[in-house]
């Protein structure tokens, strides 16, 4: 068995060590965020601040990275969440992960703090710490231009250097955005990591795997979501769907519908700005937008950026959104958290509490504001701390739209209550992907479960969280799991009788889902129509991985991350949403347009095998084979 090799780097002492992960760890945790969560629990000194020199950050890959499987270039970064103080994992599709693997490493465990800016250079099984003083102060784009052209790169911009709480790390034009990964790199004086090598990642059953990949790619190409909708409109195609279902956050989540939303929709983007679609390396889905901005072809915005820099700040200027998206990328800042913090600041001004020079409906000054935030200039330094910090200083906790400190993505939980539960329980905080992404089944996808009913949402959230967790851990993009919704529903359309019936039936599927979760390891089947990722892992590693064990892997991952967060001081009291979501109805007079979190949360804990305080029971941990 080919075991993962990790480089342990201590920046304070300059010590470098190569360690092989034990077989029992590899079989149990596979890689990616799951293995990273285990290593965080093992190596992170308890109680140490995320930005302290002693903190540990793990950059790692899954077994599928670089093998040529579809959408398999995603690498993971796990660390302590700067915004929430709990666990954080951030996923990125740049070339760095694949290159690091070709350079002979499956992951890096970095601790300590360098005295001067450092560039960690990984080539052919060697790690070098190079001086990066000359790169310090450059934006992410220029930094990457200064590094060797053929290397896979992972860099930070000015926001990371200045410890902006939601700074991101950039690889190519792809971004590991959330939770403040850039700030952790900045706190350790890591300006850049680059890798180059030519060792091909091991594939155990090469012949079968190649045949499998060919079939899988054609399956993805034929599916309406991954073969038609995403390549045509990207995630931006969700704007109109969310808007139609009143699930598009508007004016800092005051409403869920924006009359002019079509001006910032994926369709408008495709009609007026799109040059071509593109992809992360190895991805046949190709959802990336390439747009023209001031005579230069740049990466276009995702749905979350469009929603949060558009309707959520009461604006619909596409050009400004494209510019803000680009500026956030080169400064190295998360667009979701930046836009969320700005929307909160706008509402503070509207309510007359504080004035940061930003107001609803105005986007022309925001590029300037972004630079000021990234450089922490004057009062804008406060915006760089995120909306949780702002609400603790200025008040307004009921409309600070975050969970555990991490700003929510652009899905209105009151019209997608399962997503609300996901935001509340996600280990990262208000993240749609870590939260199970039920919005896709409730309000923005082809299937529509009853979006207002709490029924079955707990069980479905648990299932989806586990599945997405496992997909991430093996090195795949979550979009490759969108084929989980059968193609027939897309063909019939969301309003067809059969689609509606299926949605209705799924609303009552809770007990069945819970049963499936309990007997998961007995599901010895692999199919394209379930999670093809499990079969890919089986062929590449030789581990007996089937759909059931795969979902169980996700459960292990979620519980490990939970354990880390609990150890670092989060409690069940943090599994919550702002009052605006749980107490104020979205539509006046319709009492069901709130998130019934108090109904769903106990069921969720029960389904997860956690006690009333949200702590995994010993029995649950035994079942998952987790030793603390």
């Amino acid at each position, binding site marked *: 068995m080919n075991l993962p090799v990790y480089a342990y780097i201590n920046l304070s002492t300059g010590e470098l060590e190569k360690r092989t992960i034990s077989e029992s760890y590899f079989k149990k945790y596979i890689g990616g965020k799951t293995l990273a969560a285990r290593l965080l629990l093992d190596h992170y000194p308890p109680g140490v601040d995320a930005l302290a020199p002693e903190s540990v950050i793990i950059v790692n890959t899954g077994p599928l990275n670089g093998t040529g499987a579809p959408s398999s270039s995603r690498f993971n970064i796990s660390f302590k969440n700067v915004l929430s103080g709990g666990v954080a994992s951030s996923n990125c599709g740049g*070339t760095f992960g694949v290159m690091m693997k070709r350079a002979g490493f499956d992951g890096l465990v970095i601790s300590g703090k360098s005295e001067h800016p450092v560039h960690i250079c990984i080539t052919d099984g060697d790690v070098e710490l190079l001086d990066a003083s000359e790169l310090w102060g450059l934006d992410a784009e220029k930094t990457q231009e200064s590094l060797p052209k053929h290397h896979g790169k992972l860099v930070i911009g000015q926001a990371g250097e200045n410890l902006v709480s939601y700074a991101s790390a950039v690889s190519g034009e792809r971004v590991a955005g959330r939770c403040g990964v850039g700030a952790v790199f900045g706190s350790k004086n890591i300006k850049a990591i680059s890798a180059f090598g030519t060792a091909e990642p091991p594939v155990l059953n090469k012949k079968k795997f190649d045949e499998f990949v*060919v079939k899988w790619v054609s399956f993805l190409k034929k599916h309406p979501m991954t073969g038609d909708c995403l390549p045509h409109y990207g995630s931006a195609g969700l704007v109109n769907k969310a808007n139609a279902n009143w699930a598009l956050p508007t004016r800092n989540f005051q409403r869920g519908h924006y009359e002019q939303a079509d001006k910032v929709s994926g369709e408008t983007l495709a009609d007026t700005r799109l040059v*071509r679609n593109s*992809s992360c390396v190895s*991805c046949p889905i190709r959802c990336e937008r390439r747009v023209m901005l001031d005579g230069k072809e740049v990466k276009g915005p995702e749905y979350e950026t469009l929603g949060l820099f558009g309707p959520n700040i009461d604006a619909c200027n596409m050009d400004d959104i494209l510019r803000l998206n680009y500026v956030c990328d080169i400064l190295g800042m998360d667009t979701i958290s930046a836009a969320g913090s700005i929307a909160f600041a706008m509402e503070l001004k509207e309510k007359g509490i504080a004035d940061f020079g930003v107001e609803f409906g105005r986007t022309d000054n925001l590029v300037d504001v972004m630079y000021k935030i990234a450089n922490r200039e004057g009062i804008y330094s406060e915006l760089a701390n995120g909306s949780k910090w702002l609400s603790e200083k200025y008040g307004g906790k009921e409309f600070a739209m975050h969970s555990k400190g991490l700003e929510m993505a652009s899905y209105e939980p009151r019209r997608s209550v399962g997503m609300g539960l996901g935001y509340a329980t996600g280990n990262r905080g208000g993240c749609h992907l870590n939260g199970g992404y039920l919005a896709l089944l409730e309000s923005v996808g082809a299937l529509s479960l009853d979006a207002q009913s709490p029924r079955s949402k707990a069980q479905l959230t648990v299932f989806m969280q586990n599945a997405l967790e496992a997909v991430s851990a093996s090195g795949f993009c979550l979009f490759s799991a969108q084929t989980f919704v059968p193609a027939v529903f897309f063909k019939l359309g969301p309003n067809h009788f059969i689609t509606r019936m299926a949605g209705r039936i799924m609303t009552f599927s809770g007990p069945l889902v819970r049963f499936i979760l309990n007997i998961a390891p007995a599901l010895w089947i692999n199919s394209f129509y379930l999670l093809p990722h499990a079969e890919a892992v089986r062929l590449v590693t030789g581990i007996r991985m089937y759909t059931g064990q795969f979902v169980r892997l996700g459960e292990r991952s979620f519980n490990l991350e939970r354990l880390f967060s609990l150890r670092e001081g989060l409690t069940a009291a943090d599994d919550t949403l702002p009052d605006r979501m749980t107490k104020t109805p979205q539509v006046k007079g319709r009492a069901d347009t709130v998130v019934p979190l108090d109904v769903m949360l106990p069921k969720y804990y029960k389904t997860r095998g956690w006690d009333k305080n949200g702590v995994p029971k010993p029995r649950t941990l035994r079942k998952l084979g987790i030793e603390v």
Partner: protein
Amino acid sequence: MSYMITEGCIGCGLCKRNCPVFAISGEPKQMHRINPKRCIECGVCGRLCAKGAVQTSKGVVLQRVPKKDWPKPHINEKLCSACSICVDSCASGALKIAMPKFKGDIDVAAELTAPEKCVACALCEKRCPLGAIRLVPVPAEPSSAAAQKNEAKPDAGRDAASAASPESKASEEVRV
């Protein structure tokens, strides 16, 4: 396993400039060396070397092949999913994903936009998960097909070195 540069090297730097994985290092006019950890045995260096100074690990000297006889990647557009693994692997920048043919066109494929830059390292062919890209011999006289397979006889490279004049200039234009 890796290829090696032998004493015959005059340090012209042609192989270093064209190595698709940047495995060759050395100062001008001094003997170059190949990083054995990185070499992928594509044979580009040997095909370029006018002195026959590149050997396989078994000691077989690689023979120089004129650039016009190098195979070129051919892309099967029906199989290609435009996943850009080949584009990412191509250090010389010979491949690109085609631009959409019309507005909203998503059925694009990789294409050889700069055939003159291609060094025929075959990394694209090796890494393509769908087998959509193949290196095919250029349609020339049949003798060249045998030459491009690098089935060189020992010491045959020396003869080629003395004969090299017009073709070597052409091949030196590759990535200058």
